[in-house]
Structure formats: C-alpha cells, structure tokens
C-alpha cells in the first residue's frame, strides 16, 4: 500500500490540527506560497437594505447604488464614492471586473452598478473590462475587482471568494477534490498577485447548500453587499453567514461538508489574508434582521 495514503482526515479537524495539516498537505513551488505576514486586523463591511430586492427577487438598482456608495465610503473611510475608488485604483489602471459567471451568478445589476460607479469616478469606460475567464483575462488587467456571488459549494464547502479565480488556472478541474485546498495559489500567480483591489460579494440572494447548482429552497434574501480587500477575511465572513443560515434552517448545527480547506490554506499557506475571526473587524450598516454573524 502506498505510504502517502496517510492524509488529512476528519480527525485532524476534531483535533484542531487542521492549520498545520493543511499547510503540510498542499505542495507547490515556493513562489506560490506566503511571502508576507497577513495583516493584524482586516476590515470587512456588510451593507444591507431590506428593499434591495422586491418580493419576486428583482433587484432595485437605485437601492443597490446607495448600498454600493455606502460600501465604498465606509470601507475606505473616504467622503465620496469617487474618492473611495481613487484610493483603490488609479486612472491609468485597466480594471477587470470578475463576477461569478453562472449557476447562482453575480447579479448583472451589481456588475453594472460597479461599472457605472467607476465611470462616475473618472475611469474611462474602455479601461473597465470583464475579466472572468482564462489566464489571458487577468494578464490584460492592472487591477481586479472581485465580484463573487455568495454560495456554498458541494465540492469545496464554500464557492465564493477563493474559487472566483479558478478559471485563471487554465485547468479548473485540477482544483476539485483534495486539490481544492490549493485554490489560494491561483491568487499568487505572477499575473494575478497583488492586483485585487477590492472584493465585493454579491450577498443579495445567497445559496447556503447544494451549490453551485441552484436549489431555491436554500436561497434566501440576505440583501447585502460584503466588502474588503483581504479576500480571506471576506470569505471567512461569508462562511460565517452560510453556516449560521444552515443552522437556522435546520434548527441545529448543519456543518458544511466537505469543510472548506481552501480558506485555511489561503491564510496559513498562501498568506492571502486572515481567517482568524479575532483578526477580522466586521462593520455592519443598514438592515440588521437575520444578520447571521453568530
């Protein structure tokens, strides 16, 4: 029997040894691994508005614009959305917008709102491009704005932030299975690293189970935008919301299965940010019913 069958198991999670185990279980060239210590504390904002969608789940674009403006100013501490954008990107940047393409996709209204807001900030329209797709997409950009839809994923636990760039690998299937822990390495590819200026999660109508295929029983109107520049912290907040919703649905703990190894590895191995709840500062604005932060 091959000796390398000994591997990460449920018991490692129960022992609390996952961080170390994940670090040891993912392998790859050094340039893909952490090169700096994650920030001591990462800010993640949640802006919600109960009127963001109507009863038929149609998005109200004017309400959404207000939520986006508030997200930008609260996250950056700037006075206006324009100042906020210009603290994140420059007028010379080619800015790639990276939405979740299909199966619980990012609402087109969210993508449009971001594009309109960037143009209003003075970014030339022809410098704003759709950057979801193969590796050529990020190569053509100097800045990326991640716009994932919030969803659980049956292969990776959660399929929101860390999974957003999977097509940049050119071989997405190689990140299924146990290799999902390696999703973070894509963020360290030379043509991706450092380009992500903002992760803005479309949490208007998330999916808490069975993703990416949609099962409407597990979708609910959260009516939120979640933002941060630390992708791991943002994913951690997303994970908390998904877990709390699952618990609320069943009235008891309903663990995500499989557990999202990619999150721990993104922190411990790839140094993309912090997954430690103690090091994440969540600021919430607006509608507070069923905030689902535990």
């Amino acid at each position, binding site marked *: *029997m091959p000796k390398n069958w000994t591997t990460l198991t449920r018991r490692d999670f129960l022992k609390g040894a996952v961080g170390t185990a994940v670090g040891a279980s993912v392998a790859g060239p050094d340039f893909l691994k952490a090169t700096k210590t994650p920030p001591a504390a990462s800010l993640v904002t949640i802006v919600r508005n109960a009127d963001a969608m109507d009863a038929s789940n149609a998005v109200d674009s004017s309400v959404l614009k207000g939520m986006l403006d508030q997200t930008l100013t609260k996250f950056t501490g700037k006075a206006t959305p324009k100042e906020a954008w210009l603290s994140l990107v420059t007028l010379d940047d080619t800015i790639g917008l990276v939405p979740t393409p299909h199966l619980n996709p990012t609402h087109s209204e969210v993508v449009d709102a971001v594009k309109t807001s960037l143009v209003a900030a003075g970014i030339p329209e022809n410098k704003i491009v759709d950057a979801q797709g193969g590796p050529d997409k990020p190569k053509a950009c100097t800045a990326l704005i991640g716009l994932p839809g919030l969803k659980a994923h049956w292969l990776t636990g959660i399929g929101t932030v860390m999974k957003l760039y999977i097509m940049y690998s050119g071989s997405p299937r190689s990140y299924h299975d146990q290799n*999902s822990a390696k999703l973070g390495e894509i963020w360290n590819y030379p043509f991706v690293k450092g380009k992500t200026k903002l992760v803005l999660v479309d949490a208007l109508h998330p999916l808490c189970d069975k993703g990416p295929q949609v099962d409407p029983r597990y979708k609910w109107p959260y009516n939120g935008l979640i933002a941060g520049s630390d992708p791991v912290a943002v994913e951690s907040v997303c994970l908390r919301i998904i877990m709390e919703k699952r618990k609320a649905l069943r009235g008891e703990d309903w*663990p995500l299965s499989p557990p999202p190894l990619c999150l721990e590895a993104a922190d411990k191995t790839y140094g993309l940010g912090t997954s430690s709840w103690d090091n994440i500062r969540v600021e919430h604005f607006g509608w507070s019913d069923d905030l689902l932060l535990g």
Partner: protein
Amino acid sequence: MLGKLLDKFCFNTLFLVGFVLVLGMMQLSSVLKKGEGEKMTETKPVLPLAIGEWTRSDSPKTVTAENIFDYMNGAGELYLGYRFDRCDVYEYRAESQKEILVELYQMKTSDDAFGLLSLDWGGTAVDLDPGSLKADRTDAIWPRALYGEGLLRLRSGRIYARVMATQETPESREAVLSLGRAVLQGRESFSHPKLLETLPEVLSTGWELRRDRASYFRTHLVLNSLYYLSHQNILDLDLACEAVATLYEKEDSAQKRTRIQFLLVKYPDGKRAREGLARFSAAYLPEHPFVSGPGDSWEAMDTVSLEDGWMAYKLQGKRIFFVFECPDRKTARTLMEEFN
C-alpha cells in the same frame, strides 16, 4: 391460382415468423443489456412543446461527460460521481413569466437516478399521477418526486430530472408539476437499490433509521458532501462500488435525541473490500491498522475510540459496515453485530 395463394400464405407466414423473431431478439437484447437497477423497459419522455404560457425550442441541448463542466462547472463532478450517460436540457420561455428549466439526466442504471434524488429527501413529496397532486402514496417507501419553492426533483427508472421555475408563481408551479407528469408519462419503472434493504428500520437496541437522511452513492466526492472523512479517497471508492450513508437516532434517558452516523460500502469483490479497509485504517486509524489476510471470506470487526466518540467497522465479504460517533464501545459493538 392456388399456387399464388400458397405463395402469398408462405410469404405472410415467413414475414410474421420473421417479425416475431426480430421482436424476440430485440426483447432478448434489451434484457441482456439490463444490469442491476434496470428491470423494466423505459419509454423516452416526450415533453410538450408548450405548457401554459411557456414554449420550448424543438430540440434539447445535450450535455455529455465531455462537456458537462462547460454546462455546470464543478457541479458536473456530482453527476460523474454516479453512472452518468447524458443530460437533455430544455428551456421553456414565456412573455410574462421567468423561464422554466428542465434537465433530464439519463443515468446508466435506475440505482444511480435514485442516488441523485436520495442526496436530499427534503421538499414535499408529490404524487404526479395524472389528475392528482395529493401527498405521496403512503405505501411508497421512498419518495419519487419532491417539490420545493419552484424546483421539482424526480426519479423514474434511469432518469433523474430537475424541473425548475426561476421564479415560483401559482402558474409556474402548475407548469413545473405538469412537466413532471410529462416526464413520467408511460414510465412506471420505479425501484430502489437493493443495498438499502440492508438497513433495519429499528434496531433491537432502539436505534431508529433516519430514512430521510439515507443517501445512496458510489464515490468519495459524494461521500464527503454527506459525511466528511477525508479529501482523499481513503475508502478506495469508485463507480464500481455502492454505498449508503445515513443516521440512526435514539432518545436517551434525558429525552434528548442522540445520533450515530452509519456507512455501508459494497465493493465489487472481497479483495477490493479488504484493500479498501486496509487503506481506510492506514489513513484514519493509524493507531489501529487493519492487516488484510488471504482468502475471499475474510471477516473482521473492531471498535475504536476516536475524538468524536466510538467507531466500529465490520468487514463481511464484499461489504464493510461502519458506525461513527457512538456514545460508548458497547453501543458500537452491538450495532455492528446487528448489521448483516
């Protein structure tokens, strides 16, 4: 004249005999092709071109193993985790309503179609017999069609179908259920995997089967979505295997429900089962390694204390029974002795 009549008689007789022979050969061929979980001839569903306000294009989009990831990204692994043949996709559109998507997953056996539905028994069981929408018949052990918030999931022979209204309205609900009836029209082939019959409803120790949590599957990716053991394939599962995961529950003295996780894997042969157990124990129980012995009838049983309670396994020919998260060793051992 008589000669002509005889000629005609002979021709007709030969034609009739030939026709019967061809039919018989077709039937024989059909029977020969049928494997486990395929017991009845299946009629291909014919979906209406229009239903209520909705209409569809003439032909479906066909998704195969080659292009399934283009169609549904990583969700494709779920269907490839069963014996998948193809999926026919129909989109129904209407002027004043959002679209309805029909996905007909053609699986290679009815067990695989059952398995896909068994991954979630939630929703409302509906009876799609023409003319009625009452709750599922009480004599049906396992639901055949489940509806919830615009999504109908059903199994019929080798077909697993998802019929989903993008937005649930009274009209779209009726259309979805009508499409479900159309899928079932002329198809009466229902069955469940024999492996499920291994599961006792109630054990002598009072543990009760959670039928609503019983899932049938073949691969470790699906197992991990039900009960995580390892991202690696430590049980050496593949499409040649069959497995069932479920819960057994019992009320303790404080009237609190206690549950244990049950897992049964059936391998193609005893050798694979022994190797699977050896692989599992090396990864999961390094302190209690199982050493495979010679012979096809090798049997073994053990109980081990783990971080989340007691677990036990029993190797029995091609099958391995597991229980996890038992409150004590006696329970783990007693449970193992009851499963056969």
